[in-house]
Each structure stands twice: as structure tokens, then as C-alpha cells.
């Protein structure tokens, strides 16, 4: 049902929209449209694009793999120190990215707390590698997924899960057929946010992983470096980043953002 929105809400919302649209319009206005094609097919651009998509996809996948169980534990199990664990895991969300990068450096760098053992025993170095990029991105992105999914789980009526278990479903089955569909909007939003955050990650990446084309120079880093020598290229790169993010977010259809609701099929015995 479509109620008439109150004027105050419309005004404030319009200001908010304009606030978000303005920088984008600014970019579009300054873009070198005649040379856009040349910059878009440039080696630097394509390499950075490939690396960004690859690393952010990995970061989103890892965030989901580890984030969902974490969110589930935080929401469903009342263990000692839960508040502390939750704060710890979402720290990456409020920490300035560069600080996160520096911290990763001291933990996983060649002389780092854990990093020195990785280097000495396994000859594994994480800085200056694509794996390092994925780690930096996952560190900042996973908290978004955890927060979103935990929130969704808390809003879900546990009685549905309890009912399923009472009727003989295994925990895993219950999770797959009852919980997951019900938290679909929270999970979708969480994955999308984590992915977008990973794609746009800059501070932690440049501090921890470094900047090398093809290995660690993601699109945001390329924008930053290009800005100094070729402002036109940096604008085109920036618009590319915006366009990709826009496309993904636009494809988050409305219906995915509404709950899967109560399961329509009876649980099998």
C-alpha cells in the first residue's frame, strides 16, 4: 500500500540523495569523454580491474565462509565473552583502514608476530602478494557481513528453527532450509556490502600489500597513483569503479531485500 510520504521525510531524503549524487555528478562532469575509450582499454586499467574483481570476489567469499558461522554463534549461543568477541570481530569496521593495514603489517609482515614464523618455517611472505591484498580486504569487509547476518538472525523467530528440530530435522538441514531462506535479505545485503567494501579498499591494501601493477595494484590504488601523473586516467578509473559498484548494487532487487518469510513447504521427516 502506498501512503503519501510526509513532506519532512521527502525533503530530508532528497537532501541525502543529492549529497550522494553530487560527487558522482562531479566525476561525470570532469571526465575526459573523448579519451575515455583509450584509458579504459589501457594496460594499467585492465590489469587493475582484473585484480580488483578477483581479489574482492575472494574477500567476499572468505567473509561469507567465516562470517556466517561467526554470526550464527554470536546470535544463537550465549557464551562467555560474547560481547568481547563481537567487538573484536567488528573492530575492522570502525578502525581507519590504514591503521588496520599497519596492524596487519605488525602481525603478518616479515618481522611480524605470526609473519616471522610464516617466513622462517614455510617461506611464506604475505606483504607484496595478491594473497596479502585479499587478507587486507577481508579484514575490513568481513565485519559488515557479520553485523548484517547477526542482525538478521536475531530478528528471526527461533521458534521456526525449534519447530524444525522438534520435527526431526538435523541442525544442518534446519540451517539450510529454514534459517538461510529467512535471513536471505540480511545475508544478501551482508555479502554485497562486504564485496563493495573489499572492492573499494585502499588504506589497508597500500600499507600492508604494497603497490605493484598486476599483483597488488587494485583499482583504488591505480586511481590514487594515476592522479599524480595523469589526472584524466584517474577520473576514468574512478568512474569505472563507481560503475561496477553501481551495477552490482542496482541488481540487488527489492524482492531480495524482503525476507524469505515462513517456509512454505512442510519440513520432511
Amino acid at each position, binding site marked *: 500500500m502506498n501512503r503519501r510520504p510526509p513532506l519532512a521525510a521527502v525533503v530530508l531524503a532528497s537532501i541525502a540523495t543529492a549529497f550522494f549524487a553530487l560527487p558522482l555528478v562531479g566525476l561525470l562532469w570532469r571526465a575526459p569523454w573523448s579519451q575515455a575509450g583509450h584509458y579504459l582499454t589501457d594496460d594499467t586499467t585492465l590489469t587493475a580491474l582484473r585484480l580488483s574483481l578477483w581479489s574482492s570476489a575472494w574477500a567476499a567469499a572468505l567473509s561469507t565462509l567465516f562470517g556466517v558461522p561467526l554470526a550464527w554463534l554470536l546470535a544463537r549461543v550465549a557464551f562467555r565473552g560474547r560481547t568481547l568477541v563481537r567487538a573484536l570481530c567488528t573492530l575492522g569496521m570502525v578502525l581507519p583502514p590504514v591503521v588496520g593495514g599497519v596492524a596487519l603489517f605488525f602481525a603478518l*609482515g616479515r*618481522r611480524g608476530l605470526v609473519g616471522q614464523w610464516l617466513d622462517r618455517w614455510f617461506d611464506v611472505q604475505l606483504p607484496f602478494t595478491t594473497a596479502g591484498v585479499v587478507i587486507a580486504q577481508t579484514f575490513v569487509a568481513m565485519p559488515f557481513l557479520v553485523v548484517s547476518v547477526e542482525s538478521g538472525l536475531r530478528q528471526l523467530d527461533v521458534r521456526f528453527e525449534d519447530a524444525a528440530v522438534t520435527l526431526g530435522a538435523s541442525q544442518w538441514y534446519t540451517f539450510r532450509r529454514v534459517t538461510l531462506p529467512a535471513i536471505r535479505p540480511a545475508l544478501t545485503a551482508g555479502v554485497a556490502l562486504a564485496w563493495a567494501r573489499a572492492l573499494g579498499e585502499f588504506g589497508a591494501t597500500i600499507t600492508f600489500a*604494497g603497490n605493484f601493477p598486476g599483483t597488488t595494484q587494485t583499482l583504488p590504488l591505480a586511481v590514487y*597513483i594515476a592522479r599524480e601523473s595523469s589526472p584524466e586516467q584517474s577520473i576514468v578509473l574512478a568512474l569505472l569503479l563507481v560503475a561496477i559498484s553501481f551495477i552490482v548494487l542496482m541488481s540487488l532487487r527489492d524482492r531480495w531485500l524482503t525476507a524469505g518469510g515462513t517456509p512454505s513447504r512442510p519440513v520432511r521427516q
Partner: protein
Amino acid sequence: MVFAASSLSESFAELGAAFERSHPGVEVQFSFAGSGDLVAQIIDGAPADVFAAADTDDMTTLTDAGGADGPPRIAARNTFSIIVERGNPRNIDSLADLARSDILVVLCADSVPCGRGAAAVLERAGVSVAPKSFEDKVKGVVLKVVSGEADAGIVYTTDVLAAADRADGVEIPAEFNQSNEYPIVATIDARNSGGARQFIDFVSSDEGQQILTTYGFLQP
């Protein structure tokens, strides 16, 4: 508001303090970053009164864009050095050592003067290096070497001096080395153009030059 190349961090901070002492009532604020980054910001309208770059290329970008108020003056000169971990555990003695496969090297990106200079030095020496990262400012290279993340890098001689007890330096022979000139200029949109000119005069004065020399800079 002084926008200065990151290699000027320590020397200009002291210059600023000395300037404030001899010009009471004036406060000097600094923004240190890669020269290329700074010039991009100024052209985009950042509120700098003075701009000091680590080479003439980035200054030319500003003057070409009409952002400089008059011709730039050369404030100092700097040469390049190899920076290595304290104690030089990898026994790096020359530029040729940087090409060794067991050495992890980082350089500045060629969007900043330090990177362009390092590339020229390496070319002159005929050494081909595969760095692991291109840092956006010279202090980034210093940090990577000081923290042990990288074995070596090419930075300014003044940076090696500034990192005195945390890193060692290896000299680059004069026939390969190059000296960068550091131009300084007042910006055309300076809000405090009088103050800007006074600061630039101070940098060129005996006292200013004295301070720069103690940090390892060469006379212009």
C-alpha cells in the same frame, strides 16, 4: 600552509619552528606528501600558500597550470642513496646488488620525483631491478626498509640521515647519482601571500640554509 615533499618532513618542520620564533604571531602548518600528489591537490584548489617540490617536473606541472605566483626559487638540492636495514645484514654494497634475486627491493612510484630519480640512477648504472612495490612517497620506502619488510630501497641521502639509528645507507657513486633540485614557490591562490613570501625568503636565508644543511641537503 606549506605543502612540501615528504623528503622535507624533518628539515621543514624545524624551519617552521624557527620561522615561528622569528615571526611571532604567524603559525606555519605543513602537509607532507609525494610531490605529485601535492601538485594535484593544489591544482584542484587545496589551500596551500607555499609549495616545495622534490624536483622541477612537478613544479613545472604547477607553473604550466598557472598555479604559481612568480618564478620558483631553488631551495636546496638532494642526492640519492641506497637505504638498507640497520647493520646491512644482506651485505648490499652497490646498485648492482639490488638486482640480486634474494634481495627484496622497493622503490618510489614514477609519479613522484624520488621514483623518477631512482629510475634514472638505475638506468645510468645499467642495473635492472624488479621491485616488490612502488610506494607513493619516499617515506613509504623508508618505512618498508626500517620495519624489515624490504631489504633495500632507493631514497634521498637526507632520508638515510633522518633514519640514522634505524637504518643504514649505501652510497651511490657520483657517476650514476643525480641531484634533484627542490623548487619552492608561493601559490597564486595563496590566502597569505605576504606570509608565503616571508617563508620562502626565510628558507633561502642563511639561517634557513643552515638548517637544511644539517639535515643533509646540498646548497642550491
